[in-house]
């Protein structure tokens, strides 16, 4: 009996503590929670920051009955193509309604990226690395592994939404300037619940697809579904085919649930919730029943030989980044084409509403509200610059993987100095950003030409995206050279988001002018109208060239790291 009881005693003695099973290395759940703590903090911090600063900004800028009414009337008469970019215009006389209308993209498009990335990689990423095989052969059933990993993400999202609900309620209490601005606890909970579903639905799609197609394709599929749903629902009034497809968009299912505006339709949450559950079940079963890390091959086209870049690091760096550059460029191009197609309607609206035109002229003194370029300058450039920040982050991140993956070690064992490698490969990054901007420029040309407007000026002006992207990439390359490659993309993302937040909130929050001037995007003038601000142009070139030089100097002085 001794032999039989001893292992049992040892097993009990070695059992992990309850805390380590909840947060730590005591269980798959605990480890997943521990691994996702930074993403949780980032996503929760971002969503709370956006809501609170957004609330403060709106309270500051539209703090009177008159200004609130003016904004509400503008929202209602905006052409459908522009209404599609915003939320449902109800309850705009209240702070909550205004926030929900204005920031729908941020909460329902930006934050779900967290869930897409987490749920596409929680199992598939680990399977691709090979570590999942060790877990799956350590006596834990596959279903349990999947469920614990899933439970960890659901816990993180749940906790984030509790914090978000509290932040919503606090924002209503803190920034209420007009009657009805206070946000009721029920409204806060209702909006947090809606946000949770909007975060989890694309994530669940990624989770379901990952065992079948792998991490990258699953994330891409989920992002595609999310964006397609958003655009189909948002532009249903502008594009007839979208109107027919709109019932398929999950954004349309919760149309009547606008809790911050006082509209509740709890029943509308049932269908998307059921879909979330169904996709998660598919993901768990897919992982349990399929061969581990065996995915369906998704064919991808080969680049023509002359574009692959086998001659030197410049060509190689560029060739390696072409797919990402084209993907970002094409995505943004569709958006430009959509906006361009609605520009004429917008011009007509302003002709009918001189008050609105005067208001816009106060913000954009040189705006040409009759041309497509002028319209794009107002409604596209700011968004396009943010997107290009992420484009630059993606491209710089790929470039940085040369060092973090160990490729650079092989490359540098060839007769080439570190400086030469960094400058040439960095130029390849800039070329990729230029390519992405060129694709947008083509779309701008097509969009403006289709409306019979001036083509050359806005097309040339759209290269402001390249300037900004190169400036950001230069910052990322400099950081990578000075410190280490893995920080390049995060630095670019931080600068992009920071710049966006400054432009978004500096004026409404009455921040000092010098602080607002920190945003590079505020120094480009109106390039789509041919009005270039040399300060921004020069600053971008300096950051681009300087980034290469500083990065090259930094890399030449430090150890190459893997």
């Amino acid at each position, binding site marked *: 009996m001794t032999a039989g009881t001893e292992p049992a005693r040892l097993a009990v003695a070695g059992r992990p503590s309850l805390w380590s099973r909840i947060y730590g290395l005591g269980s798959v759940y605990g480890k997943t929670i521990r691994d996702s703590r930074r993403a949780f903090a980032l996503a929760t911090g971002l969503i709370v920051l956006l809501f609170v600063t957004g609330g403060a900004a709106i309270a500051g800028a539209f703090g009177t009955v008159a200004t609130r009414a003016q904004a509400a009337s503008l929202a209602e008469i905006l052409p459908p193509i522009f209404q599609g970019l915003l939320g449902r215009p109800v309850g705009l006389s209240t702070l909550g309604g205004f926030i929900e209308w204005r920031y729908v993209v941020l909460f329902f498009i930006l934050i779900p990226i967290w869930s897409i990335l987490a749920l596409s990689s929680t199992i598939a990423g680990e399977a691709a690395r090979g570590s999942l095989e060790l877990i799956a052969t350590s006596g834990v059933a596959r279903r349990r592994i999947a469920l614990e990993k899933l439970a960890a993400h659901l816990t993180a999202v749940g906790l984030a939404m509790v914090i978000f609900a509290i932040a919503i309620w606090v924002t209503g209490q803190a920034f209420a300037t007009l009657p009805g601005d206070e946000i009721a606890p029920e409204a806060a909970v209702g909006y947090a619940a809606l946000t949770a579903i909007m975060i989890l639905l694309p994530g669940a799609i990624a989770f379901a697809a990952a065992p079948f197609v792998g991490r990258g394709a699953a994330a891409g599929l989920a992002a595609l579904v999310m964006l397609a749903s958003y655009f189909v629902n948002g532009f249903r009034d502008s594009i007839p085919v979208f109107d027919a497809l709109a019932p398929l968009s999950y954004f349309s299912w919760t149309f009547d649930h606008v809790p911050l505006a006082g509209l509740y339709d709890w029943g509308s949450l049932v269908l998307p919730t059921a879909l979330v559950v169904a996709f998660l079940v598919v993901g768990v079963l897919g992982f349990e029943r399929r061969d581990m890390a065996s995915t369906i091959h998704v064919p991808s086209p080969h*680049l023509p030989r002359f574009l*692959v*870049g*086998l*001659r*030197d*690091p410049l060509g*190689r760096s560029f060739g*390696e980044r072409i*797919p990402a550059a084209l993907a970002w460029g094409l995505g943004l191009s569709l958006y430009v084409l959509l906006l361009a197609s609605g520009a004429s309607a917008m011009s007509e609206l302003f002709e009918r509403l001189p008050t609105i035109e005067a208001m816009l002229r106060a913000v954009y003194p040189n705006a040409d509200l009759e041309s497509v370029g002028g319209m794009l300058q107002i409604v596209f450039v700011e968004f396009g610059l943010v997107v290009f920040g992420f484009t630059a982050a993606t491209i710089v991140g790929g470039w940085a993987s040369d060092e973090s*993956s*160990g*490729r650079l*070690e*092989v*490359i*540098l*064992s*060839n*007769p*080439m*100095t570190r400086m030469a490698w960094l400058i040439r490969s960095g130029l390849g990054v800039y070329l990729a950003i230029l390519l992405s901007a060129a694709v947008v420029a083509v779309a701008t040309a097509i969009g403006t030409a289709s409306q019979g407007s001036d083509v050359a000026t806005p097309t040339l002006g759209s290269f402001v995206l390249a300037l900004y992207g190169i400036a950001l990439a230069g910052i990322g390359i400099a950081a990578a050279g000075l410190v280490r490659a893995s920080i390049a993309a995060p630095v670019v993302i931080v600068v992009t988001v920071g710049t966006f937040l400054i432009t978004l909130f500096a004026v409404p929050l009455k921040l000092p002018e010098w602080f607002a001037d920190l945003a590079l995007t505020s120094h480009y003038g109106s390039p789509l109208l041919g009005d270039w601000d040399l300060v921004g142009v020069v600053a971008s070139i300096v950051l681009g060239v300087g980034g290469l030089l500083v990065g090259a100097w930094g890399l030449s002085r430090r*150890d*190459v790291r*893997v």
Partner: protein
Amino acid sequence: MAAVIQTEKLTKSYGVHRGIVDVDLEVQEGEIFGFLGPNGAGKTTTIRTLLDLIRPTSGVGRVFGIVSSDDPVAIHRRIGYIPGEFTLYDRLTGGQTIEYFANLRRGVDKAYQRALIERFDIDPKRRFKELSKGNKQKIGLVIALQHQPELLILDEPTSGLDPLVQQSFFELVREAKAEGRTTFLSSHILSEVEKTCDRVAIIREGRLVKLDSVEGLRDLAHHQVELRFTGPVPTAEFEALPGVSEVVAMDHVLRMRVNGPITPVVRAAARYELLDFVSREPTLEETFLAQYGHSPDASEVTA
């Protein structure tokens, strides 16, 4: 012969973590030099310092007489290198990957490149990400060898290779030596190192603990001796002999480990009637393990 690689008190520390400490070694032109040590001993750190991928904390490393951090490009022009762990371009095929690195060297002998591809049985049309670990390693080897460098620096070059390819690889290294080229390699395939290398260095916890020819390393070590008696085994007598340890008696067989001269054991054995007397020099693997206090059990000795 000139020293192709020379280090003087080469030291690298990573903050509070040890890298290598006061490593002194010389690799002569035309020799195959084995660099042995367990994981984390400092082999890769030494190699990466020699290639100027990392910079020494103190001391100096020279390759072809050039201080590695002074003119790394001049060194890289004359070497071929494969790291212990690496990844290359997932989207490129194996052939494109090899071509790219050939281009970085301003071209290579295409016939020799093709011969290497055939010899390693590489499918150049498959994408790098689709290749197995061993096949990726083969691509790395072609990249290191295709320009016929004067010096090969190979960190675990046989990792992931099947025994047949390992054999092909060591043949290539021996061919390089026959052409007067130099090889500096770290490996865990000690039987091959023993057969192939002229000299071997053993590094332990960042410090060089042995550097000698393979034969020299063996001479310094021990012998495994097995005596088969016709009668009872006189264990105590042999245990008392100088240099004798790990004495194990089993039936009429006595096994022991003898450090230093074997003469006392021969003299003592001569006083008894023996059926058999086996003395074997240790393999490099046994020498290596002895350095780390993992000597094989004396009972494992075989004739």
